[in-house]
């Protein structure tokens, strides 16, 4: 794992010269955006004054104009965004581990998200981007930013979109071979209702057998369902339970895990759009770069945090 000091050195020696060039591009993009935005706003105001008598038609015209300006603005910054991703994120990924490969426009497919079986909600819209793939030591990994949503319609026919999951989905080769499915979810019921909560969990529809584990702290934080009582414990050894708890404490997030088809899936929710450039703040500052680095490290670090490179069991 790379440290903050190493990042600082990498930033000074390798990243900074390219960032300076990129900073000029950013400023140019901001300038263009301000011109387009300013012009659109001025025209819109003028139209509003002129067409105030035209009624709804005037408003529609103004709305079309503003939307058009928004689309144009996004198009104009797209070029900067892709250069940023290649210059900053791709190189940060290779700096963390040179065996890793970054594809800004690819992501973990919906079918894999569904295989992980972390959420039971039906998915109506699924987007994924910023994919990192490769091998960390002996472990094949892939992770990407994922946004899965479902929709509801109210009685007026208005559609509302609700997030099922937004954040990083990590898929890694697990170090033990297994056939069944084990799912580790954040525990709500047991923490609130105690043993009654545990009773309710055993009746959760759509989930397999409830697994009661020995570690009381793990039981307080997580609820485990599995197709196989023994296999669940084979996967969730006492040391892995401790490691999962530590990982949860480290990230401070409600993490979801599943073990399916000899793979481990970890979902870490984020509310922000990850690995995107900040157009209106300078690039020549370590702060935001360190933030991208930390977000990437959390995902890559799962290999070490869960001890996935230890191959002493039958799976080599």
């Amino acid at each position: 794992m790379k440290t903050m000091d190493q990042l600082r050195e990498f930033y000074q020696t390798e990243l900074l010269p390219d960032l300076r060039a990129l900073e000029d591009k950013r400023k140019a993009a901001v300038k263009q955006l301000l011109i387009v935005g300013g012009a659109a706003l001025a025209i819109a105001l003028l139209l509003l004054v002129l067409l105030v008598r035209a009624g709804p038609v005037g408003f529609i015209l103004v709305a079309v104009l503003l939307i058009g300006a928004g689309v144009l603005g996004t198009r104009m910054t797209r070029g900067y965004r892709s250069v940023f991703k290649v210059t900053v994120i791709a190189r940060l990924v290779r700096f963390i581990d040179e065996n890793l490969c970054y594809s800004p426009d690819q992501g973990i497919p919906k079918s894999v998200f569904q295989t992980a079986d972390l959420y039971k909600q039906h998915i109506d819209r699924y987007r994924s981007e910023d994919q990192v793939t490769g091998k960390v030591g002996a472990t094949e990994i892939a992770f990407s930013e994922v946004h899965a949503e479902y929709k509801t319609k109210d009685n007026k026919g208005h559609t509302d979109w609700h997030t099922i999951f937004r954040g990083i989905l990590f898929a890694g080769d697990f170090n033990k071979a297994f056939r069944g499915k084990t799912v580790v979810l954040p525990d709500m019921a047991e923490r609130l209702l105690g043993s009654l909560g545990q009773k309710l969990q055993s009746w959760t529809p759509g989930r397999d057998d409830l697994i009661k584990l020995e570690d009381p702290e793990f039981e307080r934080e997580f609820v485990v369902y599995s197709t196989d009582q023994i296999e669940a414990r084979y996967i969730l050894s006492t040391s892995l339970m401790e490691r999962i708890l530590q990982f949860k404490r480290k990230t401070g997030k409600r993490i979801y895990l599943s073990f399916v088809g000899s793979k481990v899936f970890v979902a870490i929710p984020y509310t922000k759009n990850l690995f995107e450039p900040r157009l209106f703040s300078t690039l020549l500052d370590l702060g935001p770069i360190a933030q991208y680095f930390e977000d990437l490290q959390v995902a890559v670090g799962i290999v070490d945090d869960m001890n996935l490179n230890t191959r002493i069991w039958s799976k080599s």
Partner: protein
Amino acid sequence: MPVAYGVIAILVVLGVAALLMYNSLVGKRNQVSNIFGTMDAMLKKRWDLVPNLTAAVKGYMTHERQVLEQVTAMRSQIRPEARGMDEKVAFDNQVSKAFGQVFLAVEAYPQLKASDHFLHLQRTLVELEEQISAARRAFNASVTDYNNAVEMFPTNVMASLFGFQRKTLFEIQDPQRQAPSVSGPLR
């Protein structure tokens, strides 16, 4: 008349409750024997490794006769008629101990330690140990679940009526609880 209906309704509810409690007790008891069956199969797999291990170390460990003898003696002790759970647990503990001794002694034989056959055996054993430990934990969890049902109200009423007995947990014997001594091979 309404009183009679009321009494019938209460009786039906009580009957259904008793039926559910009985079924849950049977389910929990079956879960215990099911997991014990799987654990037993894994223990047998490990016992089957004993002759392999003996053959692998024979050429090297001329001085570790005691350990070898112990291992082979144990193998002959493991009879298929040993069906009782306690006996199986005791055998299991002895096998664990013997394996521990062999793997401790092997430190003095780098050639043997590096041989493919021995490494394969060691890997198989580590895998089996991990599976057995998982099965033990699953067994203990299912026994605890069953014992809770046998002792807690209201299922304890049904348990005592139909003779459901408490079951014992799979405990590791005292010598295995102590940290292994590494002074032996270093002396």
